[in-house]
């Protein structure tokens, strides 16, 4: 059933080194960038990073979907502390 030889979850990350990955973080933040290094805590080193921050406006949150504002910023090189990571998704695999 293992379709591409993944034995443990970290293999997914190992196979994504030097690739552009999507990272979902606590606090409604997302990153896309090139993954250079990681460790067992999921501390990450990324470059060419764009961070997307979803900011919910409490006033308009009352009348439906609340994501009103999206802030973006770019960073050349970034260390991500592992405990903030929720999800990492590699690029579409072959």
């Amino acid at each position, binding site marked *: 059933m*293992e379709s591409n030889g*993944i034995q*443990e979850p*970290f293999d*997914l990350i190992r196979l994504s080194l030097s690739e552009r990955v999507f990272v979902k973080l606590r606090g409604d933040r997302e990153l896309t960038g090139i993954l250079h290094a990681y460790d067992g805590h999921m501390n990450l080193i990324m470059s060419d990073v764009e961070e997307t921050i979803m900011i919910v406006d409490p006033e308009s949150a009352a009348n439906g979907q609340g994501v009103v504002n999206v802030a973006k910023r770019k960073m050349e090189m970034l260390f991500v502390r592992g*405990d903030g990571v929720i*999800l990492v998704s590699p690029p579409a*695999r072959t």
Partner: protein
Amino acid sequence: MDDSPKPPSDPTPPLPPPAQSHTGSPTDFLKGVVGKRVIVRLTSGVDYRGILSCLDGFMNIALEQTEEHVNGIVTNRYGDAFIRGNNVLYISAAEPI
């Protein structure tokens, strides 16, 4: 020293044999759902539905063909996804084990 009478050589087992796939340890469950469709709920309430590729002792999870559901609405799709184990609330089998 052997003051109590010996039981017969063929004691009946104290528990009935396990009913089909409805008993077993949590580890047995997790082994059973690898390769199956699962729903992973995070403590934030977000659900990830996909095929469980594998998982480890931290409950880090690798999913394939993953859909992210927030309040029942699909908000994202990932070919592969690594979920850090500390965020996991539960793993639910979405097909018969």
